[in-house]
């Protein structure tokens, strides 16, 4: 491996990420999967970094899930997206920041389409006007939320309480970075570091003291694949893809996985449980799985936020081994307590997956 070669590519794929004043849109499914991640993002930007970041109450789905599941045509999707842009325009923002990778990919696709086919843009403007009476401006910048954390990675590092370092050995933690397919595979130039060797998460890992693991199936999809998961009969295909990744990364003995997509952490996390239950196979140390995090969670951990405030208790693959390795203080007693201190109940103990 020649790092210089990667740096050369990273240098080729740099995008302009705005410094401040973001119009933030949430993901549909993250609310359910890892609900604390988006909250953490806002907390970091507003409280740690003092940025102006605005959310609109009337924001809806971008309809990407429908689009990628072949149930909504692109023109409809475009009009829905145009409405989000109208909300941004009405709120006086120009920098559009989204939480969801699929949304990001879809926005990139739509913006690129409009650039090459202005007549489509005009039609969408007419359609939106006719349907809602709204008008919109095309965002000046489109950023994925991970782009913003990437941009702020050194500032975060400067405030870090913990580093991605194994406190027992002093060695950097070995981190697998998994990029959502829709981040840059379609438009390499829209992602930090391009499509083949994306740097957006690798940059965070490096800044926070970790070591990135490059393994053969790095580029492979997490297995979500929309239709492949949505239909129960197809789930064997979904989990097979996840398994392929784990089989490929396991020899590298990674400590953790960091992701920047709503679906990926969910599937990399849950499918480890399913593989363990079906085949009795686990991929981490001591019979545990490999803990999977969103970049917001990792940022929160680095900044010293309480793991339970980061929502790490909803992870199916136990996160405690990595918390211990990093030396993150946590109270096991409080793991399943709600915000108001009420006991939320303890999940059932699985047969094979090892949990705390």
């Amino acid at each position: 491996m020649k790092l210089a070669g990667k740096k050369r590519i990273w240098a080729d794929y740099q995008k302009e990420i705005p410094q401040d004043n973001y119009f933030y849109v949430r993901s549909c499914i993250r609310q359910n999967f890892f609900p604390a991640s988006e909250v953490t993002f806002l907390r970091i930007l507003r409280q740690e970094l003092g940025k102006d970041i605005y959310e609109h109450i009337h924001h809806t789905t971008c309809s990407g899930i429908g689009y990628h599941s072949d149930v909504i045509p692109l023109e409809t999707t475009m009009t829905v997206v145009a409405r989000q842009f109208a909300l941004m325009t009405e709120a006086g923002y120009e920098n559009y920041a989204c939480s969801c990778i699929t949304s990001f990919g879809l926005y990139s696709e739509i913006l690129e389409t409009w650039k090459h086919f202005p007549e489509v843009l005009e039609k969408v403007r007419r359609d939106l006007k006719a349907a809602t009476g709204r008008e919109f401006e095309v965002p000046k910048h489109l950023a994925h939320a991970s782009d913003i954390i990437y941009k702020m990675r050194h500032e975060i590092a400067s405030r870090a309480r913990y580093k991605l370092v194994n406190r027992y050995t002093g060695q950097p933690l070995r981190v697998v970075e998994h990029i959502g397919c829709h981040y840059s595979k379609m438009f390499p130039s829209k992602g930090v570091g391009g499509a083949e060797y994306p740097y957006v998460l690798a940059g965070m890992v490096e800044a926070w003291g970790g070591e990135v693991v490059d393994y053969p199936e790095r580029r492979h999809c997490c297995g979500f694949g929309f239709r492949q998961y949505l239909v129960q009969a197809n789930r064997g295909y979904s989990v097979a893809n996840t398994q392929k990744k784990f089989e490929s990364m396991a020899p590298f003995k990674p400590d953790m996985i960091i992701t920047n997509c709503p679906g990926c952490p969910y599937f990399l996390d849950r499918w480890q449980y399913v593989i363990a239950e079906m085949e009795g196979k686990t991929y981490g140390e001591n019979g545990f799985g490999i803990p999977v995090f969103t970049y917001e969670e990792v940022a929160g951990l680095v900044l010293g936020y309480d793991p339970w405030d980061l929502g790490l208790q909803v992870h199916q693959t136990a996160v405690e081994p990595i918390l211990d390795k990093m030396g993150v203080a946590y109270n096991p007693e409080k793991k399943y307590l709600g915000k108001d201190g009420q006991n939320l109940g303890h999940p059932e103990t699985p047969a094979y997956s090892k949990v705390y």
Partner: protein
Amino acid sequence: MATDGQKKVVVIGGGIAGMEAAAQLARMGYDTTIVEKQARTGGNVANWDHLFPEGRLAGEVVQQLYQKLSPVRIITGSSVKKADMLEGQYILTLADGSVLTTDALVVSTGFRTFDAHRKEEYGYGIYDRVITSADLEGMLNEHQPLFPGRHKGPRRVAFIHCVGSRDEKVGNRYCSKACCAMAVKQASKVKELYPDAEVYCFYMDLRMFDRRYEQMYLDAQAKSGVNFIRGRLSEASEDLQGRLVIKAEDTLMSKPLKMTVDMLVLMVGMEPASGARSVAEMLKIPVGHDGFFNATNELLEANCSGTPGVFLAGTCTGPKTIPETIADARAAATAADAYLRKKS
């Protein structure tokens, strides 16, 4: 050297096309000068080890061409920066400020190999054991071991055809013509040097068009034991041992295929030489979308640029094999001769 009344020809580019054209023009009695950007003549061919189909040594072939250049003036390490037409003559200003006048020009700017970095997914420049066909020629030429200090046991090598050719993604729709035969040649060579090695060629189509090439292909299969897999490489990655895991579809099996190899050779295609565009602008030579020069009539006037007195030779008009390049260079010299005779 020039005698009075002797007409002058300048050849831009001293690769094998330029060398052959210059030698022919000098033989016809013209005062001929080669302007070569690099420090030596021979162009890309001088970088090769041996040449298909019969395995002649590239160095010897270039040397044979060079031996015919004694009456030719060779300016190396320089390039034409400016060209002005004055009374039927061209006045060329070179990089060092010197000026040449000439009655005709043969443009033989040739090709450069595709920059394999641009196929990022193949990991050239990132993974240690990914090399290009040009690199392999260099290694063979210098008798470098292909698998230095690696683990024992049989080694595996994969040759990837069409890297930078027939690929809209890098803007090269055309076939580079010589790489299929070159891959088969190199694959056979690797088997000859390392009989235990497993050698694979990943091809899209095998374009073995010459009467000798199919025999090369057959020998590679039947005698050397080279394996052929129809499918284009999708991506390469490194495993824990630093070997390369490559993925492709075996299209004849309709199944994805992966294998771990010790060396990945990217058969880089031909692109117009880096200075070709400026020469084209200077001399008003029409250029195709792919950057290669367009002759006035690709069938019957394949060496005519459309600009009076400017003739095209070799791979500046598109990928060619060596014999085609030599034939083309001679044709360009003949066309220039016809022009100069008519002019006088």
